[in-house]
């Protein structure tokens, strides 16, 4: 579906061959191509426009080396700009506190429960931690069972209370339980919710207030389109989350939502989900994501 951006830019730049510098005239078409590529990759409309404009500014007046095609030069500027916007280096998770408490939040079906399992597995296997899971989704049919099944697969204890319908109480009781049993990390899985659902947003804000987590992670589906900015902003306004998790990157989406979210909330993307299995978790590499968005 997508042409390689660099090829496109080369085409847009055919006229430029032989000219010494990138000028206002020949840059307009290219800037349009960049914007188009970003929109095709689901980068937010306004952000794509601003981004293309800023690349244009950067490119103006740069020398076109004879060895490099103008398309390549432009692609490089675009790519570098994108990677730096995406956050330079990867950022680690905050595990301060005893136990460290990690609250998981996001839209319905984004991959929170799966990620909760993966994260506990990762902390246990790669970081030598002793984590416990808390099932605080009291709404979705079989949500608690789902977390128990995952916990069994990876040998991680899951705290739940099917009689209790109050996520704030469950979260608090889970932490108390973890303390008494000597777990050093508690990961709290919550129900999916829409940002426009006042009641549900109040609920998760109340959970945060009650447990004061060391880390709040916002889980988002990498296939998300233009709505990513609305959702990320709304969740961040209510929760002031610490990081983002991008799921389902084993698909073929370009993942422009990552750029939109970075731009609108300026929080690091910390992990990516790359499959349904408990091992399919990776830390986030900004450069790789830039390549992906540009279809390179």
């Amino acid at each position: 579906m997508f042409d390689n951006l660099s090829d496109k830019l080369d085409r847009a730049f055919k006229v430029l061959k032989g000219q010494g510098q990138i000028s206002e005239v020949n840059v307009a078409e290219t800037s349009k191509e960049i914007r188009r590529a970003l929109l095709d990759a689901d980068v937010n409309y306004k952000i794509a426009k601003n981004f293309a404009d800023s690349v244009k500014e950067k490119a103006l007046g740069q020398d076109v080396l004879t060895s490099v095609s103008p398309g390549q030069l432009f692609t490089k500027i675009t790519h570098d700009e994108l990677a730096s916007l995406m956050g330079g280096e990867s950022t680690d998770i905050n595990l301060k506190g005893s136990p460290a408490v990690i609250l998981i939040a996001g839209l319905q079906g984004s991959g929170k429960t799966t990620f909760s399992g993966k994260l506990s597995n990762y902390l246990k296997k790669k970081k030598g931690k002793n984590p416990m899971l808390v099932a605080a989704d009291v709404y979705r049919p079989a949500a608690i069972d789902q977390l128990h099944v995952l916990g069994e697969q990876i040998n991680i204890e899951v705290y739940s209370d099917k009689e209790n319908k109050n996520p704030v109480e469950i979260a608090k009781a889970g932490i108390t339980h973890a303390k008494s049993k000597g777990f050093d990390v508690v990961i709290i899985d919550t129900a999916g919710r829409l940002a426009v659902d006042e009641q549900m947003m109040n609920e998760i804000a109340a959970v945060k207030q009650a447990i004061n987590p060391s880390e709040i992670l916002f889980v988002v589906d990498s296939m998300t389109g233009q709505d990513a900015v609305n959702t990320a902003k709304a969740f961040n306004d209510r929760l002031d989350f610490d990081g983002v998790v991008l799921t389902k990157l084993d698909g073929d989406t370009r993942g422009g939502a990552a750029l939109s979210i970075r731009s609108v909330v300026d929080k690091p993307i910390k992990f990516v989900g790359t499959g349904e299995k408990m091992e399919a978790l990776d830390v986030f590499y900004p450069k790789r994501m830039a390549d992906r968005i540009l279809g390179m």
Partner: protein
Amino acid sequence: VGKSKVDDEVLDNLEEILVTSDVGVDTTLKIIGRIEERVARDKFVNTSELNAILNEEIVALLAENNTEDYTQFSIPKDKKPYVIMVVGVNGVGKTTTIGKLAYQLKQSGHKVILGAADTFRAAAVDQLKIWGERVDVPVVTQGMGADPASVAFDALQSAIGQDADVVIIDTAGRLHNKINLMNELSKIKRVMQKLIPDAPHEILLVLDASTGQNAFEQAKQFTLATEVNALALTKLDGTAKGGVVIGISDQFKIPVKYIGVGEGIEHLQVFNRKEFVGSLFSER
């Protein structure tokens, strides 16, 4: 607003609205092209008329592509049991849509049976069973880890045995770029055809309204693997507009049949073109 003539600025605004509704650049340009033609043809179009024209053009685009307006939840009478297989990528709302659809079909007097052929995702069978209890319809299961095709076969067999009107098969979420998993869908279909040669009558692809342009690729790959002939668009109760279905139904000629507007049992509606298009331009 405040403009009386349809000029470039108005069209730029329109472009922004469409693109931010996930309509996609190609389809947006196509729609704007149609508007430009109309404006050139019927002179003196002003912005107050633009909305109406726009609605008409997009509704027309959807109509050209078999998307008719359904007024109620119904199924063809000549196919018994009518077999619906529900497919889609992970987490879009397949299982929930099945629960809600079963409820609607039961309400309209049909005997419904569900088949739990997602035997992979943790607690997927339990989730469908809970929906079965809510709606009070039987769920055919073989537990987790069973062969999905065999579960589907069983579900059809019991539907025939119990003289059911509809059987709805839940399948595991799968990303469309995973060849093995896509082949598995073709197999489920083949196995069902041993019992009912023209089954499944309906292959319902569920799309999440918050999904962007990747939905195109989903539609393409699922159609290649299984001949999708109906779409459901879920999670329209949020701020996402789901505009990508306009281009999808245009390109693949698949009608949008249902929309999901919440997590509750009654939160499924039949698709209405005018309302859908209207919502693209409503306050966001």
